[in-house]
């Protein structure tokens, strides 16, 4: 009697999760499926996932050549890389100062960080747009990068992590003759690798996927990161031929999904910590 109830339960569990899994996965599957089909097949209303005639090569070639998709992808990697590097350079020392040093105004500084944490990026778009205009930055790589050089979330996360590192380690490093600067980079950051990974994922995913700010900051195609480039591609390709567009979408989504499947738990940790922001 017992094994029967257990298997019934497990059947119910898997059935329910199969339904939600389908709901979650259908867009991904359909995207890939359409990216493999010739134009005719997207029309004729077949449910089949795999195409009757494979059109993958044509679609993906078209996606890579009809629009500057390789350029969009490069822009994405480049902008995300620069943003992350600058964020780490700026956030680590200030987080260390907040966590381990005593100085007047420390609480005020931390309050500023919390205010920064509270303000959603979209609120800053208008003034930063004006600032970029004044500095003549609009429509440059710099425009894509500068609002994000300092990340209040990064400061907050690193400060929390540094707080858990015993003060004695800092004291020992000082006795060994290390400068505060060296302590930040040679002791604290290497010890904060979990925070570093979580923050890196949060930052890269956020900026790779960002559409709002690039839409405001750049106009020329050579500077567009992937989501914005995809919009441009979609708008000029007005036909109903989904193949190349789906191929382009697949290429844009793929890098993060692949890394996610490899480093799942890190991703989940980084993004939920960030969602908490």
């Amino acid at each position, binding site marked *: 009697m017992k094994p029967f109830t257990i298997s019934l339960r497990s059947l119910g569990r898997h059935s329910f999760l199969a339904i939600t899994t389908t709901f979650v996965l259908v867009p*991904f599957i359909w995207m890939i499926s359409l990216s493999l089909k010739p134009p005719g097949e997207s029309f004729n209303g077949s449910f089949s996932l795999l195409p009757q005639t494979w059109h993958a090569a044509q679609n993906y070639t078209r996606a890579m050549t009809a629009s500057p998709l390789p350029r969009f992808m490069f822009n994405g990697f480049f902008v995300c890389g620069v943003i992350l590097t600058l964020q780490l350079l700026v956030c680590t020392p200030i987080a260390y100062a907040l966590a381990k040093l005593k100085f007047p105004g420390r609480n005020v500084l931390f309050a500023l960080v919390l205010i920064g944490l509270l303000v959603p990026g979209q609120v800053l*778009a208008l003034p930063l747009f004006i600032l970029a205009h004044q500095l003549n930055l609009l429509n440059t790589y710099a425009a894509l990068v500068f609002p994000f050089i300092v990340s209040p979330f990064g400061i907050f996360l690193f400060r929390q992590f540094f707080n858990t590192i015993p003060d004695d380690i800092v004291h020992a490093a000082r006795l060994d003759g290390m400068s505060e600067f060296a302590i930040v980079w040679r002791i604290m950051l290497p010890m904060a690798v979990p925070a570093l990974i979580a923050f890196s994922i949060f930052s890269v995913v956020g900026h790779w996927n960002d559409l709002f700010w690039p839409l405001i900051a750049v106009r020329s195609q050579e500077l567009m990161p*992937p989501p914005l480039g995809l919009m441009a591609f979609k708008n000029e390709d007005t036909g*109903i031929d989904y193949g190349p*567009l789906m191929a382009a979408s697949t290429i*844009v989504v793929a890098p*993060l999904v692949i890394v*996610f499947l490899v480093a*799942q738990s890190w991703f*989940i940790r980084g993004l939920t910590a960030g969602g908490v922001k």
Partner: protein
Amino acid sequence: MRRLRLAESLVACALAAPGLFLLVALFILPVAGVLVIAFTDWQFGAASLNFVGLKNFTEIFADAAFRKALANTMLYTAIVVPGTIVLGLAVALAIESGQTMRAFYRAVHFLPYMATLAAMAITWEALLHPTIGLVNQVLTAAGLPTANWLRDERTVLPVLAIIGIWQNLGFAMVLFLAGLTAIPRDLYDAADVDGIDFWFDRFRLITLPMLGPVLMFVVIVVALHGLEIFDTVQTLTQGGPNHASDVLLYTLYRESFQYLRTGYGAAVTVVFLMIVVALTLIQTRIMDRKVHYQ
């Protein structure tokens, strides 16, 4: 001793200075700036400005399009939050109730939260295409009525909300899973002995109350995500048809950066900021209060 402390302060200032400068330049002053602009008649590119009090705010609230956008955002959030919570909790409970394939289900459900929404929105458009989209094909095959989902005033917002639920469900699920693991096993054992052994009683008397703080937290965060809806609207509907999918951030974007109506845009920004701050304050209040479980 004093000199040592002074030295420490100097070092701290040197380490914090770049971050401090950028925080002020890129967060504090811009927020102050947008607050100022919202109360002036300044327009993008103008050389002078005058304070006009609440004029920008009376203007936006007099504008039916803005009121529609505000109402749409609220309605969208009002669908996404319960939908995400119920589905996310159900998935988390289902995953937690067994031992097999946990990592798989967790990863799959989390996928939409990290995938590029702009790209996925294009796929949703293909799925929802009135003639060749999978959704209508399935509905037709099942003998059910179809619709032009994204071009129909009545369906566009609920459809966007379903995409919102699709995207946020994994986020809620992960937080609920963490919350469920934190409930001590002993409590369920005690409940068994005390006779709380019907699943609904267990859920009502143990699981749900023990998840209380996590639940409140997820509600607020998903609500914030809901208020920030932009990518799907920009990609799929551009606020249409007939403002039926206009939302706060889309209005903000359109007025500020396409029409360059700076005062209007600033006022919308301030309204958006107020809503977000209010929600965040509620969240902090709740988190501070939820200590009685310790």
